[in-house]
Each structure stands twice: as structure tokens, then as C-alpha cells.
């Protein structure tokens, strides 16, 4: 295959902030230098113990190159997303990314069952993000990976990293042991609010733990791709109804890669029954939709593509144009290029909000 002669140029007239870029390990042992000796030995002897049979396996075969853009494999070897030069060449430079937020999904300790190893992997992953990516490429920003099933250790990790502005959010997996509104996770939200950092919820494709839908495991990958929506709905309603935002009024939550077209329907449904069930949830002082609109932000990828593009505009009008954040999902197969992916009309002001200004303000980027 010949290399293309012309690199694609950005068509928008301003730089963008990309809220979802996935960095990958070049080799399976990439985290070892960042682990304390005790955990390095454990890792080499026993490996990791996430909630699935084969820790690196994808449950549903992806249609594209193991779930990656088929053109994103580095020539120098290693998996897609492991080569900073290629990230610059394929994405940061041609798309004109001013800031790119890393979402480190691999072996970060989010789903690790061994408490000590979960904390050690989270520390290693956070140091690795800075050392391998942010230090080398000042346009990138890290997200604090935490051992979320062990909130005390998660709080310690947030406090270790939070003073460093190169970390701009706290990452939680969208497949936790309990719905995220559960009180055992509240210390994490308290620490996030104290640190002034948003929580970013990103879907994961594990084949263990709870089934990815409320009625069992999907059969096809197309189903699994859609269940990110059901999963985010469950988490958003849990955070709202269990009172997290009442208890932590400054907490901000970003739903990454879960879509946003469903937001009005969820809010209408919760509001409809709220007055009748008020006695059950007296800790809620306002209608559920008000918490949703005040505390939740949404990334755009994979952008919905209805046949009538104005339908998206109506939904964004409801959610608020100040709540959407552009994301590419590089190097995954369903990558959204800012010049092509958005097929609905926007004013220049709306475009600036979605592609840049909302994220600059939310993450306090500078």
C-alpha cells in the first residue's frame, strides 16, 4: 500500500479540544518500570486478575482490525495507539488539536480484583501517562485512573495526583461492581469535588462481571456497541437518584462515548414519576432533570447520525450547547473527524463551544 501523498488538513478555522484519545502500551511489559518492586514481581509471577477469563481478549470480535482504525497500526510495530509520532501525524497535527485528553483503559486497576495490585497498577498507569505521553507531547493531558472498587485507595491516588495540573479529570469505569451512585463510592466524589476535577465515565468491553445489559449478554457486537447507552443511562440515573449531586453540589460528571440522544427521554421519564415517589427519595430537593442538566456533560463520539439531521439539533437544544464536548476516540475504528462527522447545521458560536470552549472551561485547560 502506498502512503497517501496529502495529509488531511483541518477544515475548521480554530483548534479543537479532543476529550477521548486512547494511549496503548507498546509491549505487554510496558508498565513494569512504573510498578514498585513488590508489585512488579507479583505482576510477572501472577499477571492481572480482572473480572474476565482472558484479560486481554475482546468478547465481541470487532469488524475492524481488533476494534482499531485499520490505518492506525504503527509501521515500527506495537498496537494502534502506542506510537506518539503516529498520533501526532494522523490526528493531533492534521486535525489541529490544541489539547487532547488521554483515556488510559488498559490494565489501569479499574477492574483489577486484587486490592493492592489495583492501587499499584493505577499509580503506574498515571505515572506512565505523564512520562510516556504528556511530558513528550505538551498538547496531551492525563486522566487519573483509580482503583475504583477500593475507594480508600482511590482517594489516596486522587490526592497523590491532583496537585499536578497535567491531570485534568478522574476516570471511572462504567462497569463498576455497584451502580456508581452507591454510597461506598462517595469518598471518590468527595475527593473529586475537593480537587476540583470532573469525573469521566468511559465504557469498557469486559466479558466478566455483570452482564452488559440488564437482561443478559448480547449476541452480536452491534448489540454490545449499543449497550454503552443502556449502561450510561443506568449510571446517570443512579448518580442522580441516590443523591450524589445533592451531597456534592460542585461535582461534574462527563459521560464519554455513551451517546447523548437518549438524555431527554431519561430525564422526562424520571421527572414524570418524581412527584409521586418523592417520599421514597426525600433527599432529592429538585427534579431529576435539573441534576442531569446541571452536573452532566457529554462527549460527542460516536455522533448520532439520524436521517433528518435537525433531530440532533433539537436534542442538543434541550441538553444545552454548553454541555457537549468533541471527542475523536482515536485510534478506535469509530473515530470521529471534526471536519466530517458532524452532519447537522451549527452556528459558528455553537461550533466553537462544542469543539473547544466547553472543554477549555470544564477542564480548566490552559
Amino acid at each position, binding site marked *: *500500500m*502506498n*502512503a*497517501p*501523498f*496529502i495529509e*488531511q488538513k483541518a477544515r475548521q478555522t480554530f483548534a479543537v479540544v479532543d476529550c477521548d484519545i486512547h494511549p496503548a502500551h507498546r509491549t505487554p511489559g510496558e508498565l513494569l518500570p512504573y510498578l514498585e518492586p513488590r508489585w512488579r514481581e507479583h505482576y510477572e509471577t501472577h499477571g492481572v486478575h480482572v473480572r474476565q477469563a482472558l484479560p486481554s481478549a475482546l468478547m465481541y470480535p470487532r*469488524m*475492524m*482490525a481488533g476494534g482499531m*482504525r*485499520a*490505518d492506525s497500526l504503527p509501521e515500527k510495530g506495537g498496537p494502534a495507539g502506542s506510537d506518539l509520532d503516529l498520533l501526532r501525524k494522523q490526528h493531533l497535527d492534521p486535525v489541529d488539536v490544541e489539547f487532547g485528553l488521554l483515556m488510559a483503559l488498559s490494565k489501569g486497576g479499574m477492574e483489577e480484583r486484587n486490592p493492592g495490585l489495583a492501587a499499584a497498577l493505577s499509580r503506574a498507569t498515571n505515572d506512565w501517562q505523564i512520562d510516556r505521553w504528556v511530558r513528550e507531547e505538551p498538547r496531551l493531558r492525563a486522566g487519573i485512573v483509580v482503583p475504583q472498587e477500593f475507594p480508600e485507595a482511590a482517594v489516596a491516588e486522587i490526592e497523590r495526583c491532583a496537585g499536578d495540573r497535567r491531570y485534568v479529570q478522574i476516570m471511572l469505569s462504567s462497569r463498576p461492581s455497584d451502580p456508581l451512585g452507591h454510597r461506598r463510592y462517595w469518598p471518590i466524589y468527595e475527593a473529586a469535588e475537593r480537587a476540583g476535577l470532573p469525573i469521566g465515565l468511559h465504557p469498557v468491553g469486559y466479558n466478566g462481571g455483570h452482564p452488559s445489559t440488564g437482561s443478559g449478554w448480547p449476541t452480536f457486537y452491534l448489540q454490545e456497541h449499543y449497550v454503552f447507552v443502556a449502561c450510561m443511562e443506568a449510571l446517570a440515573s443512579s448518580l442522580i437518584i441516590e443523591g450524589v449531586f445533592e451531597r456534592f453540589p460542585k461535582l461534574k460528571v462527563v459521560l464519554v462515548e455513551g451517546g447523548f440522544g437518549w438524555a431527554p427521554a431519561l430525564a422526562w421519564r424520571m421527572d414524570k414519576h418524581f412527584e409521586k415517589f418523592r417520599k421514597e427519595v426525600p433527599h432529592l430537593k429538585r427534579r431529576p432533570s435539573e441534576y442531569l442538566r446541571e452536573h452532566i456533560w457529554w462527549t460527542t463520539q460516536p455522533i448520532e447520525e439520524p436521517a433528518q439531521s435537525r433531530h440532533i439539533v433539537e436534542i442538543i437544544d434541550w441538553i444545552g450547547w454548553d454541555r457537549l464536548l468533541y471527542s475523536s476516540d482515536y485510534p478506535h*475504528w*469509530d*473515530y*470521529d*473527524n471534526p*471536519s*466530517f*462527522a458532524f452532519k447537522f447545521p451549527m452556528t459558528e458560536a455553537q461550533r466553537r463551544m462544542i469543539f473547544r470552549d466547553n472543554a477549555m472551561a470544564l477542564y480548566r485547560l490552559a
Partner: protein
Amino acid sequence: MSRHVVCPAAELPPGARKVVLVDGREIGVFNVEGRLHALLNRCPHGGAAICAGVVTGLSQSSGPGDYRLERRGEFLRCPWHGWEFDMATGQSWCDPRRTKVRSFEVKLEAGSDLVMGPYVAERYPVTVEDAYIVVDL
């Protein structure tokens, strides 16, 4: 319409492809089992350099449990979102009504015809003895 010589035929055997710059445009030229196709290297759906995609067929089914791969080698699948395009027409199989990748006429011509005709040679000095692949823009 202008005609452009892209390469000697021997440089593009069956199974090969080549992305060439013709008149400022990136065009992918494919030889699929002797059939020649030329497509603009830009996916009309998401903007990918589409000519890096896999050449494939269509998965067809008459109902649950039935599965056939038909029209092998006639479709190009975009390397990003997997949209499939009929290489002969550029028509999208995902949204045929609205989406089409720009395709160009491409054929094999004898060198003896080329040196006499009103052709624009791109990067190749044409000799009479060989056959060449020619794209119409």
C-alpha cells in the same frame, strides 16, 4: 476531461493497488482480478483515506441462520467506520441514496496509442512497447 497515464500496467498486477497524485487529487487505482478501478482517496462519510481499506464482498442473508459472501472483490471497505462502496460505481452500500465515493474511468492502453493521442502523462515517460494504466478526470 483530461486523461492521465498513472503507471505501466506491469506495476499494477492483479491484487495490487496504488495511490497516485493526479492533477492535485489523490486517487487510488486498484487491479482486482484484472478489473481496474479508480476512486478518490477520501471517504464521503467520515473523511478517511479510503483506499487503505480492505477489498471485500457483501455479506448477504435471506434470514436468520443464513449467511453468504457474495460479489467477492467488488467492494472497498473504509478503514475507519467500515462503510462499503461498490468499486465499479463508487456507490455506498450503507447509504446508497445519498453517498457515493467519486470514481473515475480507468483503463489499459497501449503505449503506441498514448504517444500519439492528446494525453497527459503523470510522472511516466511513455514508451511504445508497453501497456499503461490511464485515468480520466
